[in-house]
């Protein structure tokens, strides 16, 4: 389990950095969130 937690911590940090700094990643995240919330609202 310890390795799993370490992997999750690394994944969380990498995700945050990718969304913050890699062009296009934030737009992908936004488009996905929009589709999901839009389907809930209908």
């Amino acid at each position, binding site marked *: *389990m310890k390795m*799993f*937690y370490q992997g*999750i911590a690394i*994944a*969380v940090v990498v*995700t*945050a950095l990718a*969304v*913050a700094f890699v062009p296009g990643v*934030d*737009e992908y*995240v*936004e*488009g996905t*969130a*929009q589709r999901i*919330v839009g389907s*809930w*609202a*209908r």
Partner: protein
Amino acid sequence: MDMIKRLVTIVACLLLIPATAVLTAAVKQRYADGPNRFFSGGPLVAGDMHTGAEPDWSFVNEIVTIELQLVDPPRSRRIWTVEHGGKLYVWSGYMGTTVGQWWKGWPPQAERDGRAILRIDGKRYERQLVRITSGDILDGITKAITDHYPSRTTRAGVEAGDVWLFEAAPRT
């Protein structure tokens, strides 16, 4: 029981990754000049501010979305718009649903303080949002909406509060 607890922990940890992605994207957009598609943005800064006579708003019928910022709170979002009878209108759907009320925070804020800035084709306009809840004019406005967008907005929907409709009137 330990197995269930461990399973819940694993699922929660895995959900932390997409949650981090969404939160980071939302925070990043909050500091940007204007919104993206879904997350609200910061104040609209770039673009000349329109001064002078009231524009001929018919040009917005060729535009898909505009940027709308409230003065208080100073956050912006991308929305649909139509012109009808020489006036400009914006609206928010899904207001009759729980998710819609959680998602669309700006309509109640606009009802409290309607001062707004629109940015259309890179130009900014100071406006006053005035909610319209009834009246025969809704027939024409909702027809303009459904002619322009794949929308099921109806007069009954506006009158029932499922759609909050505002005229973007001149700031007095």
